[in-house]
């Protein structure tokens, strides 16, 4: 079983957990993901790793409450165990010495970009990180990103912290001023990644995105995560999760992301009604 070693609430909706998984911690590389299940009746959820500690055998995940499984996961405490935790899955980020690069994280994508930025910096790159969220409360892992980057720029949509605006606005400013950007990684909500690619296209800078498709097994067996890349069907779990963002069929990707929206909302509502009832019942006792 996979014990929760450390749990931290980063803000109202985002949690961080260090999970005991020594074999995965030994072989994991930046850019890879894991699949977890909270319980036997649970679903298999992919999460890009936020950090790892090989010596202590730990994998860090960061997740936002977006449905039943993530809410249920947030109720687990240190010492509790996950039913399933498999990985490391997917291809690792291609870390070499490029020169000057930009890593962009939006929302929980900030956590996913973290090990990538760090590895790029360790490989001798000059790493400019841009992280953004709706408001100050939703900015996470700022200290870690500062350490992992040569320069960190924080943005909020409402201007409550850092620069006001979207990450893509900052990105455009940098690209306008600096011709030496060799490569860009962007991880975050689908719309953010799509707009990032639109922003970088005129500058012809390689832009890598990490796709968070709906998966079941995560090992290339089911094809639930398939996506069209440059006219060809690819599996995010085994061919990705990172792809050249300019080649992604974003409309198809976004359609497939919400394939189960209706069922997911139904299941979440039943869960919330139930836990609410349970809480009320407890209060009455």
């Amino acid at each position, binding site marked *: 079983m996979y014990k929760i070693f450390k749990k931290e609430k980063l803000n109202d909706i985002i949690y961080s957990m260090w999970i005991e998984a020594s*074999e*995965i911690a030994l*072989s994991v590389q930046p850019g890879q993901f894991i699949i977890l*299940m909270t319980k*036997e*009746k*649970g*679903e*298999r959820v992919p999460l890009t790793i936020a950090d790892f500690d090989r010596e202590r055998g730990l994998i860090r995940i960061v997740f936002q409450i977006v449905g*039943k*499984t993530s809410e249920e996961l947030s109720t687990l405490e240190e010492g509790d165990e996950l*039913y*399933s*935790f*498999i*990985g*490391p*899955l997917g291809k690792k980020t291609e870390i070499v010495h490029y020169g000057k690069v930009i890593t962009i994280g939006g929302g929980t994508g900030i956590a996913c970009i973290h090990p990538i930025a760090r590895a790029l910096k360790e490989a001798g790159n000059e790493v400019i990180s841009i992280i953004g969220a709706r408001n100050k409360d939703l900015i996470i892992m700022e200290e870690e990103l500062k350490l992992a980057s040569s320069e960190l720029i924080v943005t909020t949509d409402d201007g409550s912290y850092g620069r006001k605006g979207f990450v893509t606005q900052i990105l455009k400013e940098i690209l306008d001023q600096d011709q030496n950007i060799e490569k860009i990684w962007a991880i975050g909500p689908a719309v953010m990644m799509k707009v990032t690619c639109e922003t970088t296209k005129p500058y012809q800078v390689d832009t890598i995105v990490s796709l968070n498709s709906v998966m*079941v*097994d995560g*090992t*290339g*067996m*089911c*094809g*639930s995560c*398939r*996506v*069209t890349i440059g006219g060809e*069907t690819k599996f995010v779990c*085994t061919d990705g999760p990172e792809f050249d963002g300019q080649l992604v*069929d974003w409309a*198809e990707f976004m*359609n*497939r992301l919400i*394939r*189960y929206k209706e*069922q*997911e909302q*139904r*299941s979440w509502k*039943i869960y919330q009604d139930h836990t609410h009832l349970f809480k009320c019942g407890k209060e009455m006792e």
Partner: protein
Amino acid sequence: MAEMIPVKERMKRNQVPMSEQEPKERIYNFKEVPLGYTKEEAIYEAQRCLQCKVPKCIAGCPAEINIPKFIEKIVEENFTGAYLEILKTDNLPAVTGRVCPQEEQCQIVCILEKQGKPIAIGRLERFVADWARENNIHRRLPELKRKNQKVAIVGSGPAGLTCAADLTKLGYEVTLFEALHKPGGVLVYGIPEFRLPKSIVKYEINEIEKIGVKVITNFVIGATLSVDRLAQDYDAIFLANGAGAPRFMNIPGENLNDVYSANEFLTRANLMKAYNFPEYDTPIKIGKRSATIGAGNVAMDSARTALRLGAEKSYIVYRRSRKEVPARAEEVHHAEEEGIIFNFLTLPVKVLGDEKGNVIGMECLKMELGEPDESGRRRPIPINGSNFVIEVDMVIDAIGTSANPIVAGSATGVETNKWGYFIVDEKSKVTTKEGIYAGGDIVRGSATVISAVGDGKVAARTINEFLSSGKSLREVF
């Protein structure tokens, strides 16, 4: 004890049919369709066996069961004895008794087949296995000296389980690695509950674990640990990771939201129990009208699952004719009874969708049969201008699988063919690297449970020879 009956009487009797759940009932549930023999039915059927001096059925069984012997024990009402007889060579009797195509293996060579009424060997095997389970008869590990050599097995499907059990019975220390959260491979993610109840698979695996096989789930060889790394800790390795990657038609519209690979569809339904959503968290989306492309056993499973999940119409779309259908006759029969609609000589060319990605239809071409192709079957040829649209809102691709490269990618010196399947010596199952063996679908492509069982048995035997001669994979590396 039931009595032996005269040969003349045996020849007169007909095969005892097995009762089944009524089609109009069963399309609303996931319970098993055939209900099994009663004790009396089993004995009556077993009495028909001619007990041939030179039985042909044994050679027809990849699991090498001494068929006349276990049948004789049924006649004697010694069901425990019959069970122990089967267990001598078959480690998954409740599974093979259900999903083996006996009509092509042991039963086709039965002397009584000539009269069109072979002994119902599969049904008898199933009866014995179910009786033993219900009566708490457990398998025992033979008394022998444990060996200190270790064998790793990759994949816990029928090939892996068989090889693991056989090697354990020979005294080796065996560890079985499974990528998913439950062991069983295709037996748990692929074959539906109504053909193979998961509680029965679980029971069989528990029994195998009880004789000493160590099962490690959630462990992806090729990702969590490479085969190369595994080879440093084990004396031999058997790769039985399954074919595993779904194939698609490569036609426009195939990535629309409501197009599933059979693997995804069945995994959601079987392994993840999406048919019990929202009690189980994994969702599945069922259209009103479903089209399954392909006509193998997996296609029948998919079309019948779609029906049970609420599709009002469930079509099978197949480019060849009824004669070429690769599924077992029994599966086709069950599907037809349940109202599955077969569209033969029909080739899908495009899945039609709306702007939200929902499927609204499937464009197809009519086909006609031409000259035989390399498979010996008459080649289907599209009829120009015969395009028509089947109104469906869900499509399942059940046209086969290809090799998943994860395991092979981490095994230095273990070569694959151009399709990605492991190259093995047919007789010994050894790969291009000494000490590493492979079998099941990752060698054969999409095949059957019983051929995987057969491969597992052969590999166990050659691994035993390899290790008995004092060799070890650790020295090869």
